[in-house]
């Protein structure tokens, strides 16, 4: 009898590791799937070496405009000057101008046309309206620089102040109602 009780106090301790390991094996892939794996990248933007301190003459502005390619992002879509005579208007594909409805394909075609007109130019001026979201600005950068491995259409997109009037794109000018954003130019 005493022997029997001793056996009861010292039971076989057989730890079943299979469920624990199974749990771990299931948890790890689940976490790996849930975790959002992304690759971060960057768009470098430089500032101009000098800032315009006084307004240039009308002739100078017009001369600069003819030498520049300018993409304006507005609440209605894009407009591109420098691609051909006049200005190319690229309205959004729907009346509600969301980032995904902007005509980036049309913008790419317009920039390629501008590239042929300005073969040595590397800069394209990007002029966003005050309420244009950051995603649209990045979209313009993407179109200008192209995908990895592609030759960029314009290697150096440049952000310019606010929403200037037509014919007045230069550093320091913008929507007077808006705070003064940076003058980022060539």
């Amino acid at each position, binding site marked *: 009898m005493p022997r029997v009780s001793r056996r009861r106090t010292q039971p076989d301790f057989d*730890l079943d590791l299979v469920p624990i390991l199974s749990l771990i094996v299931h948890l790890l892939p689940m976490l790996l799937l849930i975790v959002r794996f992304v690759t971060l990248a960057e768009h470098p933007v430089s500032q101009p070496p000098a800032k315009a301190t006084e307004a240039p003459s009308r002739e100078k502005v017009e001369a600069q405009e003819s030498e520049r390619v300018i993409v304006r992002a507005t609440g209605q879509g894009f407009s591109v000057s420098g691609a051909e005579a006049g200005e190319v208007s690229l309205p959004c594909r729907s009346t509600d101008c969301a980032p995904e409805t902007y005509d980036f394909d049309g913008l790419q075609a317009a920039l390629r046309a501008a590239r042929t007109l300005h073969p040595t130019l590397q800069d394209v001026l990007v002029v966003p309206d005050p309420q244009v979201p950051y995603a649209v600005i*990045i979209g313009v950068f993407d179109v200008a620089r*192209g995908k990895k491995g592609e030759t960029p259409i314009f290697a150096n997109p440049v952000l310019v102040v606010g929403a200037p009037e037509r014919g007045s794109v230069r550093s320091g000018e913008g929507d007077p109602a808006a705070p003064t954003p940076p003058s980022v130019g060539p």
Partner: protein
Amino acid sequence: MRSARRRPRRRVEMNFLLSFTSMTDMFTNVLLFLLFFVNPATVEDVNFALPQSTASAVPSAGPRLRIAKDEIAVDSAPVMRLAQGQWRAGEGSADDRGPLVEALGRAREKISPPQDAPTVVVECDEGIPWVVLGAVLQSAQDAGFAQYRLIVLGEG
């Protein structure tokens, strides 16, 4: 004979003590590693989403300027508040952005070794309008930064 039978039985019936503490500790460490160190963009934030891009340049190091829908932070320290990605009523002027310029100036002074053209790394929510982003970039310029690195989600 009797004693010869019992000895091998006792050897088989050994106490097996598994250290659950170590196992749990290891598992916790593996989880934390996966959640926080494998990818910095693992935690979903309703106030912050980087825009998708085809850019492939590897992000550089430097002072971090983060513009979320609810706040602007410099090196993880909140500096200004936003309301749904817009300036709060009566804010956004150059004077209101004084604290931001000061915080960016302090971040620039910490750059070691000092750079000729200091660079600030900008993490901005995809829905932030240019009226806010442009003003914040202007503040960075006022603080002495000469270059921006706009962080985006690459194609992987």
